[in-house]
């Protein structure tokens, strides 16, 4: 069986600075992977490169998604193939109602007729404690940090992607907001879907329990293990790995 996501020897640079120095990562369907590491270790870069954000130059290695070369695809094609990135800082789009935005993206998905789709959106929104009037407001405009993150989870739930990358989902959230968002994510765990959870802190992993934990430092995965690795990190910090990577 091919892995859902295979990153092999990935080298990435931004303006002549190499950020990822040959990164390997294999994620199978049904698994939840956590990627932890200090600031500047390249976690967000990895998520951006997988999703196809402009501004990064891949100088080596490859990314296969369902066996296909992901780097050959435009970002919208990657999204259509099932790659979803929940943003650390979801972007505001003034004047475009959230519901309109959701409907736009749903175009071409034949399984929902419009009234059914609207109903589905309202249902999922309710389960995430997203008030209905928020759906009428501009995308993320005037949303609190927690609302923005829940809006990301809402979109994830509606588009049913096969790979969800959660970039620092816990940043800016209080415990209650975190719990709601995490419950939304957990509801999406399935044997056909994989998740990559990027975070600084072990806290998030109490709510979204990973199968595999990777530690990143200076552009590489320096250690992988079970969920207990996260607890170990919480105690001893990242310093040991920084030395190792150097």
């Amino acid at each position, binding site marked *: 069986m091919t892995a859902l996501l295979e990153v092999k020897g990935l080298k990435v640079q931004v303006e002549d600075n190499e950020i990822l120095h040959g990164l390997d990562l294999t994620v199978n369907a049904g698994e939840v992977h956590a990627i932890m590491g200090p600031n500047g270790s390249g976690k967000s870069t990895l998520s951006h490169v997988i*999703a196809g954000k402009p501004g990064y130059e891949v100088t080596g290695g490859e990314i296969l998604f369902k066996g296909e070369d992901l780097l050959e695809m435009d970002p*919208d094609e990657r*999204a259509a193939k099932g790659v979803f*990135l929940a943003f650390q800082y979801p972007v505001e*789009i*003034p*004047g475009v109602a959230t519901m309109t935005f959701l409907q*736009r*993206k749903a*175009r071409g998905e034949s399984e929902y007729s419009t009234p059914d789709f609207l109903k589905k959106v309202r249902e999922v929104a309710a389960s995430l404690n997203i008030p209905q009037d928020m759906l009428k407001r501009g995308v993320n405009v005037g949303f609190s940090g927690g609302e923005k993150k829940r809006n990301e989870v809402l979109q994830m739930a509606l588009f049913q992607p096969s790979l969800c990358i959660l970039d620092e989902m816990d940043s800016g959230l209080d415990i209650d907001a975190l719990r709601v968002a995490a419950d939304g994510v957990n509801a999406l765990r399935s044997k056909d879907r994989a998740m990559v959870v990027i975070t600084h802190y072990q806290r998030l992993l109490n709510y979204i329990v990973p199968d595999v934990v990777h530690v990143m430092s200076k552009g590489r995965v320096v250690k992988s293990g079970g969920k207990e690795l996260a607890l170990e990190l919480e105690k001893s910090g990242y310093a040991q790995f920084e030395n190792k990577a150097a």
Partner: protein
Amino acid sequence: MPAVQETVDRVRQIDVDQYRYGFETLIESEKAPKGLSEDIVRFISAKKNEPEWMLQWRLEAYRRWLTMEEPTWARVDYPKIDYQELYYYAAPKAFVAPKSLADVDPEILKTYEKLGIPLKEQEILAGVRKQGEPSTLDDDAIGGEYGSGRVAVDAVFDSVSVATTFKEELKKAGVIFMPISEAIREHPDLVQKYLGTVVPTSDNYFATLNSAVFSDGSFVYVPPGVRCPMELSTYFRINERNTGQFERTLIIADKGAYVSYLEGCTAPQRDENQLHAAVVELVTHDDAEIKYSTVQNWYPGNAEGKGGIYNFVTKRGDCRGKNSKISWTQVETGSAITWKYPSCILRGDNSRGEFYSIAISNGYQQVDSGTKMIHLGKNTTSRIISKGIAAGVSQNTYRGLVTAHRKATGARNFTACDSLLIGDKCGAHTVPYIEAKNSSALFEHEATTSKISEDMLFYCVQRGLSQEEAVALVVNGFVKDVLQQLPMEFAVEAQKLISISLEGSVG
């Protein structure tokens, strides 16, 4: 936003150099000799069988114009215009006023067909051709606030109006809607009473030129207490090489009257620049309202900035009576140069002026546009919402004046000017002038400039939108406040135009 997919499809069909409306109708035209002189003014007046007072009015304007200098204060840059190199009159040859569309030159009708855009109007034109049959639009789904869903079209082809529809029905309501050249002959009292009272012949260089040589335009008079039963619409089209287009429009809403007027323009492709200097005058009496909407899509020049229309327009409304209202809504996507400031003189107590604008510049376009709200009466209010979008290497300037006279107690204005930049070679500028001579005046001004950020586009494409859809979505969100002010079929049209205008501006 169901129109967006269609927009994107359209955008894909279009190349910057293949301006969609860049075709030329092969109708022989009758031109005045090149250049401008008293003789030319007399020629134009004679061609139109004008009464002596009209000729004298024109000549006075011409003599005044000779003493004036072309203004240079706007933030636009263009080669000097040689006014002696232009033609000032062109009419379709062998023109005999048609009694109905059936009498209209098929070439001209074909032109409207090719234009493809006046959605509702085209159906009406087709309906008219069937003669006598009721318009299919009366019972269609548009309904709602558009009432009967009908639009009367006063077609201006080059300089002479060639067809006027719905004339009879308007007549029943007492509404006069006809080419101004006809109104000068048929309603001289009304024309004489109002013409030049909002924009005097001496107003500015281009308005004065217009006063001397104006070719044709629309005249609307809505009698007291009458709500005009349909939207009035005119399509302007410049169609003669090197012909200056000098439209003159005069709209009067008498006490308690209401009228909504739509103006939309497209023009064929040109290598030489074409001068356009229109004048529009609106007058509202007590409790009357005029809503004037424009979608302007003249040829902006090619990818190198060659060609394109020079558009120097003077539009002004006079809220002459108490509780009267004038509202300007414009979507400006075309022209190489736009110099245009639809304004309101708030003379009557409690009168209200509104200006909603979307001005888009791409390629080498230069836009200097805005409004003037002149508060003279007590408790007058005005609102300005301006959305400027600059792409390519274009320059987009909002220039606005809000002023309160000494006696304008309780005057209020709210202004919001937002600019959106696409790419890093364009410019957006905001030049507001605010004067309050009455201490009770309350003026608010808000301005923002933002850039379509890569983050915004990436967020959209990550959710499955193509790059072009993403730009269209973000831009449509940006202009939403103004689009909502347009009559529906115009709004759909405008939305398409906006995306077409920004084609190729990203990525």
